[in-house]
């Protein structure tokens, strides 16, 4: 369980997070949605320890993330940020193997190699395993990064807009994979999404944010309501039920 307590963060005069309180139970796939500048990525960055909060704290099963030992946290929580530009020329296998670092501390064992191979297979990356990252398409590269995060073998996974710049086929593919990982492997996955229909279709819970606050948190039905979404996005939105799913039309 991830507990966020009274988190505040501002850049200069601009408050990005205002007293955010959130508790995410174990298991399942949670989507964070909201307009640009709502504070979604900032929230994820603070939970992922890439940024420090001005006040408040984040607990992972009672462990204060800001004070805990980095390696200890990295064995329980994996984070994938939005922009993964790598200067280093790495093969897919090298990249995925980095996920074992919190466990192996740079001295990989047989078990680490098995984990790496399994993560590569899970994302269907075997044909590209020995290719360099800059020789892959955007979708393949994104899958490689997700494989690295899975390879870290943590109970909790945070993903910041993993569908950015992907076409429909790859976006659906990756979202399905993430959902599968959450259900099959029993992980708790939190993912920032721009596409509310994707969130509605794939997530078990949705957190809706705006102006640094959490407006609503619950199963898709509680968030996918026309008047509420209009308030969040300040755009006329209709919500329809199509083949069993709630779909927003805008």
């Amino acid at each position, binding site marked *: 369980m991830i507990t966020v307590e009274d988190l505040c963060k501002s850049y200069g005069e601009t408050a990005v997070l205002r007293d955010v309180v959130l508790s995410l139970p174990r298991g399942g796939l949670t989507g964070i949605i909201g307009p640009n500048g709502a504070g979604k990525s900032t929230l994820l960055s603070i939970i*992922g*320890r*890439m*940024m*420090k909060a001005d006040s408040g704290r984040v607990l992972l099963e009672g462990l204060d993330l800001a004070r805990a*030992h*980095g*390696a*200890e*946290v*990295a*064995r329980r929580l*994996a*984070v*994938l*940020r939005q922009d*993964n*530009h*790598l*200067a*280093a*020329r*790495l093969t897919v296998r*090298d990249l995925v193997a*980095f*996920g074992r*670092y*919190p466990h192996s*501390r*740079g*001295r990989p064992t047989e078990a680490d190699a098995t984990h790496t191979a399994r993560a590569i297979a899970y994302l269907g990356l075997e044909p590209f395993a020995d290719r360099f990252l800059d020789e892959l398409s955007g979708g393949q590269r994104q899958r490689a990064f997700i494989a690295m995060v899975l390879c*870290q073998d943590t109970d909790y996974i945070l993903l910041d807009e993993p569908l950015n710049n992907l076409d429909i086929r790859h976006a659906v593919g990756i979202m399905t994979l993430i959902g599968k990982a959450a259900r099959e492997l029993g992980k708790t996955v939190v993912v920032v999404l721009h596409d509310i229909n994707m969130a509605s279709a794939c997530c078990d819970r949705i957190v809706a944010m705006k102006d640094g606050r959490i407006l609503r948190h619950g199963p898709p039905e509680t968030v996918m309501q026309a008047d509420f979404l209009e308030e969040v996005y300040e755009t006329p939105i209709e919500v329809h039920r199509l083949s069993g799913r709630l779909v927003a039309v805008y």
Partner: protein
Amino acid sequence: MIARRMVALGLAALLAAVLFMTLGARGNWDFVLPFRGRKLAGLAMVAVAIALATVIFQTVTRNRILTPAIMGFDSLFVLVQTGLVFLFGSARLSALDPRLSFAVETLLLCGFAGLLYRWLFGASQRGLHLLLLVGIVFGTLFRSSAGLMQRLIDPDEFLVLQDRLFASFNAVDQDLLGFSALILLAVSIALWRMLPLLDVLALGRDAAIGLGVDHDRTVAIVLGLMTVLVAVSTALVGPVGFFGLMVANLAYLLLPTTRHAVLLPAAALIALVALIGGQTILERVFDYDTALAVVIEFLGGLFFILLVVRGKSR
């Protein structure tokens, strides 16, 4: 492939060293070997120090065309030297124990890096680019202040100073050899223990934190080690601008890997081949007609332009 190339580099370095020791030797071996040996040791230490410093600096900054020189390190060295001559005069300085002045210079360099680093990282979490920018500004400031003092001092003093400031591989500072060797050994051991950590740092700040590395602290340690390495090489031969850039990038080119367990020794070996081999050729083939520093700066400069033009800045 990597193993084969490493062996080849090792053999090339060994060959360069053997040629340096034996080629064109006349007279008493009892004199030639210790005499050349000291010089060889000095060159080797400079080569290794510059190579290691550049590679770890580029890893931490995730950039392949910036070198420690851009942080204003060589300029600070110039400023310290100029300031000492300006304040005390060259005669009194020559009387000083070189180990003492080396220790003072190293401390000044480390202090400067530490201050700059703490100040900037305290203020900003994404400090590295700001740090580099400030480094460039400080570099210019140091260079200009040194330039001002150089214009004010006695022309004779200026000549002495110029002699100290130009990189010279012929006149490796002999008194500092043992001292530098110890420091270099200590830094190398520290780096060797950090090898996997350096690999993770190369992935960038976010990924490193995600993998449980205390990024800011580790970067501070790496930059500290780099400062000591720069101090060793500048104290031995003076500032050498483009040499590090050249050997680091040759290492990346020859060995397409990101593992520092390969990259660091490879860059060091390339530096050894270039420096010792180059010095051998200049001394024995061209009879000291040109200065190696000039040749290296010329080739390094060309290399730098090539890198910029080919857009390999990342």
